[in-house]
């Protein structure tokens, strides 16, 4: 590749990994096209009320627990400002052909097609969350007060700063008892996916902690199989939750049913062996992550192999890098790390190994 021609790359997916990868690429002086299927950048991470210690966090105790403002908004600003980045929202990748160093891309924006030549590709198609309706016994499709953790995040965000109270969907009451069900659709090859989604434990504990801190009288239960978290600091996090009174019950919940007016969570406490029925005002299903629809198609056109769980294998062909949840469930921290690595790989490839100083 001649060094004076402008190098270009396509980033598929405008979630946190895609955003970071685009910024890094652009800062390496690479003309970057960022394609996002939705009308908005940020992906799932942007919908969270807050995140728990990520790479982006200023780890000097300066957290205002308002990640949308602190992490994402400035990043949007940077992305939209950057001369080297062109963002295409509401756009899907229809076709990819060619070879590393020279890919031909066909893009589709609301029926309008556009052809593009790029030298390299970063796939950051992310993952989607498991559809909780698939597990009938948890009643997500039937009961208003059975919600997924993302729906809870949405509630927290929309109620923030306006009302002091936290209202459950059915009648707007502050719930007195909240049950968190972990591994919904995860580690369950019959009804869901076999893999563990890694981040759900942390999120559930975080949400439980927030609720318990705000409403000390609220009874908060977390039903789990194993408590897992890849991040250091989790142990303290977990302990804090225990200390403020979040109750952890080991065992997979059998069902959530309505008994007259109340939701009842039935489970076996594996540790004590007893069968429990817990009346609950709100049930939060912590759904896992699974591959995004269409990501297999893109992987195929890029000659990337798939893992048994449907996620993409990372070590593919030269000139193609994968970042974020497309590789498997992960949190924001790993996604950003991934993205930085992916951008490095691509920059290295386009430079022929030559180092370009990063910002």
């Amino acid at each position: 590749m001649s060094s004076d021609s402008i190098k270009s790359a396509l980033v598929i997916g405008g979630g946190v990994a895609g955003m970071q990868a685009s910024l890094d690429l652009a800062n390496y002086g690479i003309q970057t096209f960022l394609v996002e299927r939705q009308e908005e950048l940020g992906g799932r991470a942007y919908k969270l009320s807050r995140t728990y210690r990520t790479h982006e966090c200023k780890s000097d105790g300066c957290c205002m627990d308002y990640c949308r403002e602190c992490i994402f908004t400035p990043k949007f600003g940077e992305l939209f400002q950057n001369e080297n980045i062109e963002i295409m929202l509401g756009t899907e990748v229809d076709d990819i052909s060619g070879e590393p160093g020279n890919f031909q891309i066909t893009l589709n924006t609301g029926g309008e097609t556009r052809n593009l030549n790029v030298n390299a590709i970063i796939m950051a198609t992310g993952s989607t969350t498991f559809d909780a309706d698939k597990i009938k016994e948890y009643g997500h499709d039937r009961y208003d007060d059975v919600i997924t953790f993302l729906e809870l995040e949405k509630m927290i965000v929309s109620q923030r700063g306006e009302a002091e109270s936290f209202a459950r969907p059915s009648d707007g009451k502050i719930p007195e008892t909240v049950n968190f069900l972990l591994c919904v659709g995860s580690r369950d090859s019959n009804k869901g996916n076999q893999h563990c989604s890694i981040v759900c434990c942390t999120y559930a504990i975080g949400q439980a902690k927030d609720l318990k801190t705000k409403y000390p009288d609220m009874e908060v239960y977390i039903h789990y199989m194993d408590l897992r978290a890849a991040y250091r600091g989790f142990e303290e996090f977990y302990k804090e939750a225990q200390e403020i009174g979040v109750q952890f019950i080991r065992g997979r919940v059998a069902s959530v049913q309505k008994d007259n007016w109340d939701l009842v969570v039935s489970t076996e406490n594996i540790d004590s062996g007893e069968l429990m029925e817990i009346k609950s005002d709100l049930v939060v299903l912590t759904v896992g992550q699974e591959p995004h629809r269409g990501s297999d198609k893109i992987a195929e056109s890029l000659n990337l192999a798939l893992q048994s769980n449907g996620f993409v294998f990372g070590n593919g062909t030269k000139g193609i890098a994968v970042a974020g949840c497309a590789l498997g469930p992960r949190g924001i921290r790993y996604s950003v790390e991934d993205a930085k690595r992916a951008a490095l790989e691509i920059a290295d490839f386009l430079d022929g190994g030559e180092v370009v100083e990063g910002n």
Partner: protein
Amino acid sequence: MVTEAQPKENEVVSDDKEGDFEPKIIGFLCNWCSYTGADLAGVSRLQYPPNFIPIRVMCTGAVDPVYVIKALLEGADSVLVAGCHPGDCHYLSGNFKARRRIAILKKLLENLGLEERRIRLEWISASEGQKFADTVNEMVKETKKMGPNPIKKEWDI
């Protein structure tokens, strides 16, 4: 700040009365913790009285006591210096340095008969929006109780 004439000693100036006296409080907020804490108070819509006027500095360790003296001499009724909690300073130890300087200054002003509470050094982290609002509320209340800065009664400033 308006001094029409030199009042006689112990004479109660009209704006001295608690209630209709609106104090002015100047705050030096460290960029990393307390300023962000103030932002959080804003984001969380935590109301506090508008008597507080912030100045952003990089670190409490960069707050020259001269600034505080100047503010008081110009007629500020109280001064807040707020930074990261001990051990959390973005610049490792700025807050410890600030603590020494402010302690010296307080001692001097105390000797000059200025209430020690007119200068406050507070540790407010970025996540303590509530603490920030509380601190301002408390300071306004306290300053109202103490009355206007006596320096204002003097002509020279």
